């Protein structure tokens, strides 16, 4: 704690007073939980029981040891999260980019369209999930009914068969969050200096060449941001599965967060759940670093 007298020309005490209310929350509900999470993961921790024996790294080694009973449910859930992430992230990078490029010109109704595409994002996952579970119902859902009307298969079990359930979960997620990413891209597109486009035109570049050589490279920081944010959001998918499929068929769409919440907050195996959330987090951070490195490497190439 710095004392006022040691800070020259400073606002020491006043500054800490300004910071205090936020820091109380930040220490109590962000920093302390991060540390406490590690501590819990080293114990056989049941919220409802008085004794919480120390077990060292057992919770981690159980999750990483194929012979342990904890291994399969956890890695099945990690696999579900992996599948969901692998399909939703590329779609949520590419589709919003196309929408943003179409929207990035002046035309009548532009703000209206932008507002409409963003609208689902302001709804919660519970509303989105309940609504789409209804629309995708195998027997009475509007989706199958209209597919039948078009002469297509009309009895797809969207919420309880494979691979239909992944189409449903990924599709609904794209529907729900496409506008969010598009809005970020649009802002990025508007920040590209006009001169870059003009220069490309003077050089006689065609439309695709302009997109490839001007638009996409200039958008790189924004694309990286979108990629990392979408990656983290997809890897944390929970509500869609919880409401729409409840993990079905079998437990194939039960995601890692679903597993962590059930294990920790329903069965109260909190040590195991905390360990699982650390494994998921470390995996996510490594993935983010890879994404970061890829964008950096591409950037370096372009400069040379």
């Amino acid at each position: 704690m710095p004392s006022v007298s040691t800070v020259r020309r400073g606002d020491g005490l006043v500054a800490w007073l300004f910071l205090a209310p936020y820091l109380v929350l930040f220490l109590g509900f962000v920093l302390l939980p991060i540390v406490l999470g590690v501590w819990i993961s080293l114990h056989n921790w049941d919220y409802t029981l008085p004794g919480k024996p120390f077990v060292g790294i057992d919770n981690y080694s159980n999750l990483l040891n194929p012979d342990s009973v904890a291994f399969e449910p956890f890695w099945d859930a990690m696999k579900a999260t992996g599948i969901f992430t692998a399909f939703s992230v590329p779609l949520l990078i590419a589709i919003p980019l196309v929408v943003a490029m179409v929207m990035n010109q002046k035309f009548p109704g532009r703000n209206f369209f932008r507002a409409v595409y963003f609208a689902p994002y302001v709804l919660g996952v519970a509303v989105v999930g309940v609504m789409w579970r209804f629309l995708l119902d195998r027997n009475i859902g509007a989706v199958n009914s209209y597919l039948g009307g078009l002469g297509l298969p009309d009895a797809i079990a969207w919420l309880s068969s494979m691979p239909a359930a992944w189409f449903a979960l990924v599709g609904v997620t794209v529907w729900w969050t496409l506008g969010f990413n598009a809005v970020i891209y649009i802002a990025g597109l508007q920040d590209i200096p006009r001169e870059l486009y003009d220069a490309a035109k003077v050089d006689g570049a065609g439309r695709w060449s302009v997109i490839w050589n001007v638009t996409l490279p200039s958008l790189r920081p924004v694309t990286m941001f979108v990629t990392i944010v979408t990656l983290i959001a997809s890897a944390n998918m929970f509500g869609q599965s919880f409401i729409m499929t409840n993990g079905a068929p079998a437990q194939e769409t039960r995601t890692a967060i679903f597993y962590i919440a059930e294990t920790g907050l329903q069965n109260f195996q909190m040590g195991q759940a905390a360990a699982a959330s650390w494994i998921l987090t470390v995996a996510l951070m490594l993935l983010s670093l890879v994404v970061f490195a890829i964008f950096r490497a591409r950037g370096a190439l372009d400069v040379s």
Partner: protein
Amino acid sequence: MRGAKQVLRYALLVPLTLLFVSPLVFMLVTSFKTPNEAVQTPPTWWPDPFTTQAYERIFNAADTPVLRWFANSMIAATANAAIVVVTAALAAYALARLEFRGKKVVFALIVSTLFVPPVILIIPNYEIVGRLYWLDTLLAIIVPTAASAFGVFFLRQFFAQLPRELEESARLDGANRWQIFVQIVLPLSKPALATLALLSFLTNWNDFLWPVYVLFSPETQTLQAGLSTLQSANNVRYDLLMAGAVVASIPVLLLYLLTQRFVIEGVSRSGLKG
């Protein structure tokens, strides 16, 4: 050439608009149907007969008190947004304008938690909230998520680009830091404060996993957690489920309709400065 391009653009944008709007319209329409018509195929786009019985039923059911949930969500989201804006504005001002030891460390610490996946906080925060005896109360929904690193970062960036001249002349006139903050900085920052309040309200209103697990009694649920309770209580009563979903959507859609420029601007700025 220009005309063809324009046609092509609308040929893409109009169907996309239908894809976004029609599910919401269908949800609304279904909420005014009888239970039988709600599950009829092919689906109807106008209720016949038009009935509000789904709403009456969910508003009066003891195990799914939707109006109570509505009030809970309103209280929680409003209180959370207020705490976020007040604490983040104070902290952001210190980080943007005041000189003190440890400033860089504090700012770096806050920013570094921006990309920490929230999953890491779930289990330990349950333990903390339990020790505070906040489980099954709205405090569990209001307080922990009010520690908004995004809010501090967002407002700090905004304060930092305000012109310093006004603040400096007020300083020369003898105003202290608190007076400068309240009388000069805050009034200049209304758009940013409003945007942060809106985003916090929406996020809290829509939060799902956390309320599902920390609220258990029917009377303490928020609307989002309640929707899943409503779903397990009325598995295929889609008239009731859609009525519940409509109640949960109306406040946020209205708020969005009135303030969409703020919301969209806030989101786009969060991306650029990230």
